């Protein structure tokens, strides 16, 4: 039972990192970033490439990979998303789909689709740790939970207290009004893409160190977006409970059902949520009319 709880927490942390990416981008530009899964894969491959370039120096390759992920977000916004301003939202969403396709094609082109393990070159090991109560998780599972917790704490503080965070919330609420008050909303949107890619990249780096790295990891992204919707697409705080719910349903359906059922369980959560409360647990109801 405790083991199930621990597993749920680990899966929930992964989903929370990805879900934060969805919500950050959605709040600023009302675009659902369907390439979040590929940003995760890309983070993993950045780590793989940097670990191969600087073997045995995780203090160099880990921050560099995270930085590269964040920069990717900025580039994506400037090159692909900024020209889509003023186009229908759905066209912008489809552009993120094509972004995912292009990222995946690029990854396979550079790294081929073989399964990789960045940990080998990183010079770190991943020993199992016993938690009080008898549950066993791997070290990187713990890292995942800690990273998610730190990232969320940081995001909350940043959005509540720092001037830039407040500008970000303002631009998300009404870009035109915000820009009239002198907020550089292109910069703010680029920042939100950078944060989303950073969160996705972190998830990818930890997941690929923990399990494995291959281009098909992007399905994780599709499943995590059930989390963003269950929590409410415009609510960062909603991501946390939603991630726990979706992860718990998934873990339970592995225990009492079969792997096929657990694959589809996030989407079942999504459907149920759409039928009873489409704006999500903590989303705002007006959001339904805005898209």
């Amino acid at each position: 039972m405790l083991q199930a709880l621990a597993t749920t927490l680990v899966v929930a942390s992964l989903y929370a990192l990805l879900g934060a990416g969805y919500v950050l981008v959605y709040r600023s530009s009302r675009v659902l970033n369907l390439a979040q899964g590929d940003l995760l894969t890309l983070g993993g491959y950045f780590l793989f490439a940097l670990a191969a370039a600087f073997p045995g120096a995780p203090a160099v390759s880990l921050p560099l990979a995270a930085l590269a992920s964040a920069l990717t977000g900025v580039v994506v916004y400037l090159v692909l998303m900024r020209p889509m301003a003023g186009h229908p939202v759905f066209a912008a969403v489809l552009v993120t789909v094509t972004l995912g396709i292009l990222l995946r094609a690029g990854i396979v082109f550079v790294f081929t689709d073989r399964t990789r393990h960045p940990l080998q070159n990183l010079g770190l090991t991943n020993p199992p740790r016993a938690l009080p109560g008898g549950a066993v998780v791997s070290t990187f599972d713990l890292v995942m939970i800690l990273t998610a917790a730190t990232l969320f704490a940081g995001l909350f503080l940043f959005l509540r207290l720092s001037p830039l965070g407040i500008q970000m919330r303002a631009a998300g609420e009404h870009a035109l009004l915000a820009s009239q008050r002198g907020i550089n909303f292109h910069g703010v949107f680029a920042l939100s893409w950078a944060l989303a890619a950073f969160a996705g990249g972190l998830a990818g780096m930890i997941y690929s160190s923990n399990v494995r790295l291959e281009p098909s990891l992007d399905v994780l992204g599709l499943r995590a977006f059930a989390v963003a919707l269950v929590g409410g697409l415009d609510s960062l705080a909603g991501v946390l409970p939603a991630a726990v719910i979706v992860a718990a349903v998934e873990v339970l359906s592995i225990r009492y059902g079969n792997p096929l059922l657990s694959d589809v369980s996030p989407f079942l959560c999504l459907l149920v949520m759409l039928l009873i409360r489409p704006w999500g647990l903590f989303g705002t109801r007006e959001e339904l009319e805005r898209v």
Partner: protein
Amino acid sequence: MALGGGYFKTSHEADLAVVDTRLRRTALAVLVLALLVLPRVASSFVLDLASQAALAAIGALALNVLTGLAGQISLGHAGFLAAGAFTTAALVERGLASPLLTLPATALVGALLGLIVGIPSLRLKGLYLALGTLAMHHVVLYVAGEMQARAGGNTGFTIPPPALGSLVLRGTVGWYYALVLAAALVLVLVVNLQRSRAGRAWMAIRDRDVAAASVGIHVARYKLSAFVWSSVVTALAGTLFAYQRGFVSVEAFGFFLAIEYIAMIIIGGLGSALGAVLGAGLVTLLPYAIDAVVAALSPGAADYYIFPAKFGAFGLLMALFLVFEPLGLVGIWRRVRNWFLLWPFRHRPLRAS
């Protein structure tokens, strides 16, 4: 159709005609003739490509009715196809392989599924609806996957070629004629739907549902009918897919297939039947064209470079159309045609209409 030239319709019949000018009649006759004699001159590889494009065109036309005409975004198109293919597979498993049985059964399943997916559309719009259809896609694939796992073997279902009495549909040429005929039927149906009461109601809902309701359109009924119509045709296309391939497996109906269909109608031009057919042709032929180009440029290229090249070219094409040509191939075609029609002038004469 507002052209630059002096072509005026003077009778009710002329206004109702689908193919209205002599040039168009000739062009259509030439096209039909070309499609009829193609098997005599083309290799079986070309015929197979044409069959694939025709099959894709059926699915694209159906999606175009839903997304292009009625404005309801669906990311679950592959799910509808899978529903059709797996209904057929389930019936074949039970020894009921006659197309007289599988086709109506598939249509029924498609209609039911369309109704189920359509009901949330009464409440949800835009992105939220797209998410619902995406979830539905995964649920359909889950049911299909369970079915596949239960049936043992775990790789898929083998489907015998469809037979009516002693008449068996098999071979490249036979399938070519069957699929082109089916695509032509769906095309005629869509073109006529577009200018009928239902088509106009769908377009009104697409442009503004509140305004549509205020002029007396039953929004709920027409939204549902768009979903049902589209999913019935798509499920039937799934059945044709199953029969033609002779094999059905969950792996063939991934999320990428749904994206491919959306790409077809985007690249072709949203809301246009001609666009759906053009887009289906382009998206189907693109990977083969890249194969040919790669083979011509560097004969020894490794397989793992060809896959990302195809994948990337598809993504790039879709992105280019989304950003630079939202009207799609049809938009380009109309611009070119108007340029020739209006030459030496650049703009259509202003008319009080």
